[in-house]
């Protein structure tokens, strides 16, 4: 009788005797993941965040958050001898002189775009399948907060290199901060250390927000998000053997762990390939920022498009009283509009149980969009309004690429903002209702029967 010892026994016992880890390990290995492609969106966001932390740490080793002006003598010829800030100079140095620096910078930027995109698509999945309902409403609030923080974090990073576009973005952010009722002026002055462009302390504040405060908040909330998921288990779509009280799917070990690690590697693969092969934000082409310089046709990172659109679509209304300004114009498009959209997102669980679904029960089984036509139609209408504003943010590109007159385009988008959501609501509701009635899945084919007319004029079933 051979007495070969199990090689896993000793390490497992070592941890278990100290931390009691065996039970936790069993729980993790047995954890069941329901299989549906849309469940990967959140994972893509998580993995992009990891890529952001890794590349960001590398970049921070070479970046100096300093607006002090120096003369450029780096490797990029066209800027030789120009007065630039240390921040801009160090961004160029990490792009041109540091091995792998440009790869890391571009991967970081692409990862940021994918991070926010994955969170947004994940949000759509949650909204249109009713996954935000009790008992997941608390975790849904955590998720919406993560989206807001991700947008802020992205903007802070975009603003760090002190290139022309980041400076223009900060000018607009300052104007929006100034426009806040009551506190705007003092708040913006305090944050920037004076009137825009502010004193050099502003760059340090932006830097610490981007590399410490916001990432720490994101990481903490991601941990909370995942803990709550594990506590409640995943939601799942209805199917054979799937009930409210169980969860059916692939256990973490070994199948799901390998597939999810594969997804991690795939996300890294795509981001690194894009970082290496697809140029993004070549700050040396934009040049250094000065408040008296700007450029035409500038577009921010995609997740700010809806804010630039809001600022552009707003008619030139400012509220004045007794010779004083009360509400400056940027407030409406830059602060009120996103606040309303996020307020709507936060209020969704309450709105849904009180008005839309009128259902106060807990649910672990998801609904397909068609199962709840009212919610799907309302969600699609709000989404359409935001998408119209988003599209208006690139109305100037329409002019450059296709020659559509800018002013006409703005009036078109203003009209579309009011009209399209109504149309989308009606169409979505009808489509959902029809689909629900037909019991058919548009992608999984048709489940009817083929008939043919026979010689006597009757119909016979034909096997396909």
């Amino acid at each position, binding site marked *: 009788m051979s007495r070969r010892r199990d090689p896993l026994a000793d390490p497992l016992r070592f941890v278990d005797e100290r931390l009691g880890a065996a039970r936790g390990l069993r729980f993790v290995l047995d954890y069941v993941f329901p299989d549906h492609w849309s469940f990967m969106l959140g994972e893509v966001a998580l993995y992009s965040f990891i890529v952001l932390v890794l590349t960001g740490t590398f970049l921070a080793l070479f970046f100096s958050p300093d607006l002090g002006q120096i003369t450029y003598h780096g490797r990029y010829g066209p800027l030789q001898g120009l007065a630039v800030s240390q921040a801009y100079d160090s961004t160029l140095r990490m792009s041109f002189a540091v091995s792998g620096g440009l790869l890391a910078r571009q991967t970081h930027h692409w990862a940021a775009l994918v991070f926010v995109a994955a969170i947004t698509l994940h949000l759509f999945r949650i909204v249109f399948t009713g996954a935000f309902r009790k008992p997941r409403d608390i975790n849904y609030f955590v998720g919406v907060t993560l989206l807001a923080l991700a947008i802020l974090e992205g903007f802070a990073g975009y603003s760090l290199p002190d290139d022309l576009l980041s400076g223009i973005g900060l000018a607009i952010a300052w104007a929006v901060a100034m426009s806040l009722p009551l506190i705007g002026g*003092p708040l*913006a002055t305090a*944050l920037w250390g004076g009137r825009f462009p502010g004193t050099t302390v502003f760059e340090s504040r932006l830097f610490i927000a981007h590399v410490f405060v916001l990432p720490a908040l994101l990481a903490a909330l991601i941990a909370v998000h995942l803990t709550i998921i594990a506590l409640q288990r995943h939601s799942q779509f209805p199917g054979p*053997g799937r009930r409210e009280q169980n969860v059916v799917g692939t256990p973490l070990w070994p199948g799901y762990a*390998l597939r999810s690690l594969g997804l991690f590697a*795939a996300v890294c693969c795509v981001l690194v*390939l894009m970082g290496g092969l697809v140029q993004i934000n070549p700050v040396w082409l934009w040049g250094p920022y000065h*408040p008296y310089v*700007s450029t035409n046709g500038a577009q921010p990172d995609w997740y700010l498009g809806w804010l630039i659109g809001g600022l552009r679509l707003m008619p030139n209304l400012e509220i004045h009283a007794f010779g004083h300004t009360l509400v*400056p114009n940027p407030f409406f498009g830059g602060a009120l509009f996103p606040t309303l959209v996020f307020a709507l997102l936060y209020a969704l669980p309450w709105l849904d149980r009180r008005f839309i679904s009128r259902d106060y029960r807990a649910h672990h089984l998801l609904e397909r969009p068609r199962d709840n036509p009212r919610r799907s139609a309302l969600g699609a209408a709000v989404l359409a309004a935001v998408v119209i504003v988003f599209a208006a943010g690139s109305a100037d590109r329409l002019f450059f690429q296709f020659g559509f007159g800018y002013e006409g385009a703005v009036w078109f988008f203003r009209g579309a903002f009011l009209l399209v959501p109504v149309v989308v609501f009606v169409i979505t509701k009808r489509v959902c209702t029809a689909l629900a009635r037909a019991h058919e899945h548009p992608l999984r084919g048709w489940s009817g029967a083929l008939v043919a007319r026979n010689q006597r004029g009757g119909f016979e079933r034909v096997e396909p």
Partner: protein
Amino acid sequence: MRGAARALWRWLVAIVLLRSGALRRRGRPLPGEVDPSERHAGAARGADLAVVVLLLATALLAACFAALFVLEPDTQLLGLALGLALGALAAALIVAGRRLVPQETKVEERPALARPDQLAPAAEQLRAGAEGITRRRLLGAAAGAAGAGIAAAAAIPVAALGPGITDQLSRTPWRAGRRLVDEGGTPVAALEVRTGSFLTAFPEGAQQDDLGAAVVVVRVDPAMLRLPAPRAGWAPEGILAYSKICTHAACAISLYRSPLNPSTESRGPALVCPCHFSTFDVLEAGRVEFGPAGRPLPQLPLAIDAAGVLRAAGSLSDAVGPAWWGDRR
């Protein structure tokens, strides 16, 4: 005797387990329900070989990345090597997860998180903490005061961010008599400003990055001007200067719409901000013609000195840049 005790113990354990639900069907379907759980062990043919090849490719490509990093750190090649290494790894992991390891579908009963029977005891326990304390209200108020004090003490260092709002928000270096200079510091002569051209100027000797400094200078036909009466003398020879900072969101105004044939075109010259396309009428003292700006561009009164150089004939007509709550305009 010991055997009987052991039997009794077993029964007790069995009853407790039954009551607690631990022995209840774990993932087994209800009567009349499909059981989706399944498990197939045994790798698909050739999967192990494919995984080995992919893992070796990962190693090779990663080594390529390391070699490139040292020898020829070209961004495209680095990205390609590392990206493909990660791609091969992803493929290996996914093939292994789908074809190599046992494929299993499991059914797990959801744990009931809510414990309604524990609610009342929990509330009672919370309440019991204050047992025997008589001046509850006073204590509560004092604790509230302490909390507010600590919060204020923790928040007050925010004031160090400062400075507080001062007159600096409407400050401008423009004064009567100051010469206009270009970015390089050369004084701007009136003759340099031609119709249809667009020039950025600063007050001589001032910080160019100050929001109140930059102005745009354009020339139009004096006969077309529609300035209000108090500004009649502000545009000598039809040369006008406006603040370059948009009154909407502080971007620099760097677009100039100058009609080629003013007599036939319905719309006159205008300054346009490229951020949100606020459009300001040049002839009518910077009136907002289109776009989100809520107020006209501040105008700088100009004069031409004996040497033909442009000078400010006063300060800007208004505070520069975007507005804020309570500012006076």
